[in-house]
């Protein structure tokens, strides 16, 4: 291989690793910010990418962006609820130095008042309970049972406005693809 071709390929490879991928352009990534996060733009401006939120996360829910969500949110934390949902332990807010993640005590009232990662949405065409097969797994997985999610006859789930979007329902849904999904706050806005 000639030196010039080698250098050009090296430069192309480096550029590819440093630039946003096509997925970001399609907007195909559905991710949550950790609990207590400020709105998306303030969060990106305040997060210094220290990674402590991920380090203290006992459930290993928090991952970090490469370039797939654009350069601006590189190295910021996110959660894919279907892979590993948030257990609302609120440790990430404790270690966040900049207030990008608010410090919220681990009690039902402040969590309901301040955490807003998104809101779960049931797809009745996929949900087993709505299809006549009693399931109710999402209801049982919910840490805010009977507040964020209720069940009707045949364990059909109904999500209320109190839902904080932790994603444990989506994580536990036994249907493939999942019949309940968290719609992130920054998408619904």
């Amino acid at each position, binding site marked *: 291989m000639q030196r010039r071709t080698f250098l050009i390929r090296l430069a192309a490879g*480096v550029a590819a*690793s*440093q630039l946003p991928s096509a997925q970001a352009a399609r907007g195909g990534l559905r991710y949550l910010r950790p609990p207590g996060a400020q709105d998306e*733009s*303030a969060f*990106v*401006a*305040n*997060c*210094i*990418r*220290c*990674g*402590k939120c*991920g*380090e*203290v996360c*006992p*459930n*290993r829910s928090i*991952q*970090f962006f*490469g*370039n797939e969500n654009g*350069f*601006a*949110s*590189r*190295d910021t934390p996110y959660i894919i609820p279907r892979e590993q949902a948030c257990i609302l332990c609120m*440790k990430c807010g404790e*270690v966040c*130095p*900049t*207030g990008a993640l608010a410090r919220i005590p681990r009690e039902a009232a402040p969590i309901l008042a301040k955490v807003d990662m998104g809101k779960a949405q049931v797809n009745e065409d996929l949900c087993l309970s709505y299809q006549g097969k009693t399931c109710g797994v999402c209801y049982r997985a919910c840490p805010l049972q009977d507040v964020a999610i209720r069940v009707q006859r045949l364990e059909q789930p109904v999500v209320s406005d109190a839902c904080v979007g932790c994603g444990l329902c989506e994580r536990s849904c036994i249907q493939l693809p999942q019949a309940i999904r968290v719609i992130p706050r920054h998408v619904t806005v």
Partner: protein
Amino acid sequence: MSRSDAKRHLLLRRQLNKLRWLSLSLVFVTLVLLPLLSIYQNYTAAHAYDLLEPGQKQLYDVMEWLTGAFTDDPATDLNAVKGTTWSASLFGYKISDPLAVVSQIAASLTLYWPFVLTALVPLVASMLLGRIYCGWICPATFLYELNDNLGSWLRRAGIQLPDRVLWRPLKYLVLATGLVLAAITGSVVTAAIYPPAIIGRELYYGIALGGFGAGAVFFLLTLLFDHLVARRGFCRYLCPGGALYSLLGRFRVLRIQRDVANCNDCTKCNAACQFGLDPMGDGFGQECNNCSACISACPTDALLFKLRINDLPAQGPGHLGHAYRKQRHVSRDENQAA
């Protein structure tokens, strides 16, 4: 070896560079250890020892052996030490890199005092001690110095590596550009081009999350830059944090100074200085990171840490050297002639 020689070798200043290496290594080892402890904490939090793979069990056992003496509840207690040199939590106190604070202010255009205060200790330390962070703590310096040693071996093996002299204030331009870009994009972009922040993060990604990220590529490029453009080039010419620390340390109190009466012009200090400064000509300036390599290299103990606000003006050739004696003879001859 005479007795006075033996005594001199035991002097602390001869060991300063080793002490500094100890400090750099400790920081780096800690940065490797923290992700491992984080994994261990996840295992303990999950009460899942029985479900672990053999390799994971080994990690669990080693970490338990390391921490067992200090804690009965690792899942909670080990959260006492978290983070990297970019921003860390130490036993309830948070401490952050001043560059992190400046960048966060630029990106968000707000002052969040609890965060600003976390940079107070490093800020004061840099104002008093100069680029002490660069020389004694920075995990990137640890790798850059190893990389520089590799460069020396390559040179010795006959491979020509350039050491261009670039425009030194370039790094201040990088710092300014980084902050302006942070303000424009509303995102802490300096975090992506600041090696110690990258190292801390990438070690965590690589060890705990199972793969290095895009920052690792950038860091490898800076290693190449040091070989292909200028020795320790990134620290000297491009590092935004180094620029900030240089500015903060402009009026530092702790400086290395040359005792001209003991200097014999051997140039070992200039060769030891990876930053390409001129200790033998009293040229330290705000770039000097007080690393003490020149002090340890000096065979006549002519370089010392001093408490001074300013560098000495150039003092001319050392009094133990040829040049100075020649000068003296010339002036004596002139006196006799007159």
